[in-house]
């Protein structure tokens, strides 16, 4: 079971510069644990206090995971996962 995960520029320090890596998991939570096993430190950039960080967006097959179960969102072989930090700020 392989799922392609696209990594944003800011997190490529954890993937030796790779724009996309392969990972496994039946849920987003499991996938992130698998990412962490191979790219130590990346989990902390995605998750805070057991939930997805507010300003990190994760998409499964173009769907924002916030609308499809968050960390419990289910994954299957061949799915495409994209990680994108929000572009946001405020005065």
């Amino acid at each position: 079971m392989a799922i392609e995960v696209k990594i944003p520029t800011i997190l490529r320090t954890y993937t030796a510069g790779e724009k996309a890596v392969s990972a496994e998991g039946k849920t987003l939570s499991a996938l992130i644990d698998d990412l962490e096993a191979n790219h130590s430190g990346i989990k902390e950039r995605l998750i805070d206090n057991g939930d997805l960080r507010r300003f990190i967006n994760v998409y499964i097959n173009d769907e924002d995971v916030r609308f499809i179960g968050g960390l419990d969102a289910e994954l299957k072989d061949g799915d495409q996962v994209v990680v994108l930090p929000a572009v946001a700020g405020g005065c």
Partner: protein
Amino acid sequence: MLTIDQATYDAIVAHAKRDHPDEACGIVAGPEGSDRPERFIEMINAAGSPTFYEFDSTDLLQLYKEMDANDEEPVIVYHSHTATEAYPSRTDIGLAMEPNAHYVLVSTRDCFTDGGNDDGPVEFRSFRIIDGNVTEEEISIVATLS
């Protein structure tokens, strides 16, 4: 230093004025590694707020997929401050996630006069924001990118 052409500069300022008093935001994309801001892309501020901006998450994905397909990256990430100076706020710094981008800030706080004119001065400044460190940079406005 940020080198930007006059038309793109004008487009950013016009967007900031149009969305005032809400914050305006967008990106100028360019070929990866080129440092050339070529393609101006206005984004909708999903927060619709005078004190906060955020790209809509669906629009954000669409934009990055498009840039990926074109081998582009965000060369400029811009937004406006409508009541404060054109300097990155603590929130701006904490959320700056594009280490290669020029962060352009436009302030429209002085550009609207009582009569409803919008021809007062606009502040336009550019910064690098890397690991929480802000460095202001010079801006060179050219007729067209060479």
